């Protein structure tokens, strides 16, 4: 019987073709009409070290990368040693015939593939190994290789010989696994006219930024955020915007603040170490009320930590980082698709509320490739900041208004002149340290966020909306939680998940309602101290069951399902 989805894992030494094989498979699956989601682990070094690329593809929308591996492709011995225990009970194995020894008890479902040998014979070098491997995979899952051939033709449009060799390697690979072929046959995709796109979370963010009207992006390379800067460096000038690779993260955010002061929609992207360095400037943006967007692709911490592993451990820093108490908005997108929309929200909130907005993603979400429904660009709204165009006389830049939002003069606008400052100030921006002024202005600055705490922010629900077993999470764990909720609903449980897309300000009342009938509140998160659990307790005052883990890996749906099952025991 064909399966609705398969989990394929490719593993080997970094630089051996594992990544390119995974990329080809993913793109072919997307082109072939499948939904997919990928998951990768790789070393922090440039060369060497074990890497892994998992592709899950299926006829229905895929929300998580999957747990048990249906098809494991080993490029070397270490790959087998590291991954054999992830195999499903009936999982099959393909392996490089020269490099890997498979224990006897797995022999019947393992097939050698002459990756190196065929690549050299057909392509003249070992570079075509990836095609041999992909071909072998296609055989096992009975995947029509046409999309791959098309991709190859496009890539090597001007090099017919190379294209032919690649396609020959592909076919040769398919033959290698002949007797396993079709053993993991995948159900054909549903025919549809729907427009879909294949992209990573980081790419969705970059696109979201462009859609939101990004003018200026200042950044500094850091794994796993660099490709946002890189993609925008290639693309933004075509829209009239620019990117600058700055000398460090402090300069990046400083330049973003400068650009925004001058009226640009401006953003930066970084990972934990960079976010730490930005602490002082985030407070400045909060105090001077300068809109800006800061993308934080979280990675394993603390310190340099695990640059290529995932973690959700910057939440508290995003919420509270920096001395004093400066308002900010913290958003956590829950999927690749949401990376697009949350980025649009981020810019809109920044502009409307004149605050720094921190968008929290993580290595897993930022780098995974996912087929998603193509975002409907006609639904994108672009909010503009309140400016001081029409003021007469001296502008009250920090005017005390009901909603706390004041008109912002932009250089070039007559009568808008003022001095933005991080010093406590009066309505004109003039320094004023009196007790009354500080109290008044702190209220003003924080008041701006009230709408977001009280209903203006969109959040994510799945399953029952007032469940017995409530799950609260944030960001990238949404996918597996969603799948786990489906499993638990199928078990007949009253269960539901709530994902605050805006975590700061925290939607206290919404959570209170959601948990009103809950006997258990489970909070899964990928960190050590249980930051979200502490947040929920501290803000809502309810008892929660913290399920934090910090192994640098995303949750699987099965992990979460088990937590839910445990909870009802």
């Amino acid at each position: 019987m064909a399966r609705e989805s398969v989990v394929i894992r490719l593993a080997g030494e970094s630089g051996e073709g594992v990544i390119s094989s995974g990329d080809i498979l993913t793109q072919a699956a997307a082109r072939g009409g499948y939904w997919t989601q990928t998951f990768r682990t790789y070393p922090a070094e440039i060369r060497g070290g074990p890497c892994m690329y998992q592709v899950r593809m299926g006829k229905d929308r895929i929300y998580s990368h999957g747990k048990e591996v249906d098809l494991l492709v080993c490029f070397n011995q270490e790959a087998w040693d590291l991954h054999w225990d992830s195999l499903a009970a009936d999982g099959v194995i393909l392996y490089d015939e020269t490099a890997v020894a498979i224990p006897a008890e797995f022999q019947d479902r393992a097939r050698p593939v002459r990756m190196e040998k065929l690549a050299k014979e057909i392509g003249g070098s070992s570079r075509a190994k990836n095609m041999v491997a992909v071909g072998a995979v296609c055989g096992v899952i009975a995947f029509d290789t046409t999309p791959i051939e098309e991709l190859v033709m496009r890539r090597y449009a001007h090099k017919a010989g190379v294209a032919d060799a690649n396609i020959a390697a592909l076919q040769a690979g398919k033959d290698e696994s002949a007797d396993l072929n079709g053993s993991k046959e995948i159900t054909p995709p549903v025919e549809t006219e729907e427009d879909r796109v294949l992209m990573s979370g980081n790419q969705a963010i970059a696109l979201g930024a462009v859609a939101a009207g990004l003018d200026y992006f200042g950044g500094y390379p850091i794994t796993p955020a660099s490709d946002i800067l890189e993609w925008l460096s290639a693309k933004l000038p075509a829209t009239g915007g620019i990117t600058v690779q700055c000398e460090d993260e402090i300069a990046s955010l400083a330049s973003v603040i400068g650009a925004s002061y001058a009226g640009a929609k401006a953003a930066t992207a970084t990972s934990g170490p960079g976010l730490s360095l930005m602490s002082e400037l985030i407070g400045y943006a909060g105090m001077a009320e300068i809109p800006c967007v800061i993308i934080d692709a979280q990675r394993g911490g603390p310190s340099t930590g695990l640059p290529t592993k995932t973690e959700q451990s910057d939440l508290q820093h995003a919420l509270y980082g920096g001395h004093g108490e400066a308002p900010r908005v913290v958003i956590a997108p829950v999927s690749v698709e949401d990376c697009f929309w949350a980025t649009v929200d981020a810019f809109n909130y920044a502009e409307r509320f004149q605050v720094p907005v921190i968008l929290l993603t993580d290595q897993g979400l930022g780098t995974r490739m996912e087929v998603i429904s193509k975002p409907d660009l006609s639904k994108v709204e672009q909010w503009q900041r309140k400016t001081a165009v029409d003021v007469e006389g001296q502008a009250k830049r920090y005017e005390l208004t009901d909603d706390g939002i004041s008109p912002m003069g932009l250089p070039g606008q007559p009568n808008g002149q003022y001095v933005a400052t991080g010093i406590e100030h009066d309505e004109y921006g003039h320094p004023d340290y009196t007790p009354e002024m500080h109290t008044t202005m702190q209220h003003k600055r924080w008041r701006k966020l009230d709408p977001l705490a009280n209903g203006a922010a969109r959040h994510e629900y799945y399953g029952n909306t007032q469940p017995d077993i409530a799950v609260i999470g944030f960001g990238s764990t949404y996918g597996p939680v969603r799948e786990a909720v489906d499993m638990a609903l199928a078990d007949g449980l009253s269960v539901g998940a709530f994902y605050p897309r805006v975590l700061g300000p925290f939607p206290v009342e919404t959570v209170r309602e959601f948990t009103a009938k809950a006997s258990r509140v489970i909070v899964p998160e990928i960190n050590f101290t249980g930051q979200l659990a502490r947040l929920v307790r501290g803000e809502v005052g309810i008892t929660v069951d913290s399920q934090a883990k910090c192994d640098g890996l995303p949750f699987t749906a099965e992990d979460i399902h088990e937590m839910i099952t445990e909870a009802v025991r």
Partner: protein
Amino acid sequence: MTTAPAQRKPSDYKSDLKPIWCPGCGDFGVLASLYRAFAELDLDPTNTVVVSGIGCSSRLPGFVTTYGVHTLHGRPLPVAMGVKLANPELTVIAVGGDGDGFAIGAGHFPHAARRNIDVTYLVMDNEIYGLTKGQASPTSLTDQKAPTTPWGNLETPLNTLAFAIASNASFVARGASFNTKALTELIVQAIEHKGFSYIDALSPCVMFNNKQEAWKELVTDVEPDHNPADRTGAFDLALRGGFQLGILYRELRPTLDDKYAALIERTPDSDIVAMMDSFSARKGTAIGKPVV
């Protein structure tokens, strides 16, 4: 029809805020020079932005009627870069102290310089931390006594002019608060210069490091036969004892905002619709990352 406005006067740039500086502080002279330079250039306050860091000197933007950004300690230059790149029409001036610019801010200087951002950077150099009450700064003299160096400063001061010349600043000059006429002229030239212009303005702190009289003895004008296009010569001059007032180095090369303008010009136009389409799952991009 509107009539052409009369040329602006120095006093037109004076804001309502009264400077909080100590009576006699050199920063008054620098501010006066700035007012005059602005007037001489007839700068439109609406299109001018003065960016500063933190320090006594960094309070300057408040005393000017232009737009202003009083940033954080050490950060005026990257903020100024952002302002200028976001709106190249603006005249952008960064100001601050020697501590702000060359202690905590030292890391931004060489990059502003080598990128040739079109910003004038005017440092009020009093060889001391004024605002925090008189500690040594990177330009304080060796053996100088200050609250943090009660036994005398053990460090060799930074020669900021040599530093600027080495960093590829395209305009490097020195003025003094007690010589407002010359300083005004330098500021005018620096603002007119297309590119990154650095002015070290001697500006005595009467409260914690009152060297005004000593400095007056030490200043000389850059000799008229000095060739400001000669980088090595400028460096040599910067190393010379005493204070050379005038332009040490000047070079014309494209500014960063010009380069970006040319880049935008040269990249084929695109938009979000086309960009989104390039990710189409069905149509498929070529294998690999998007390339230019």
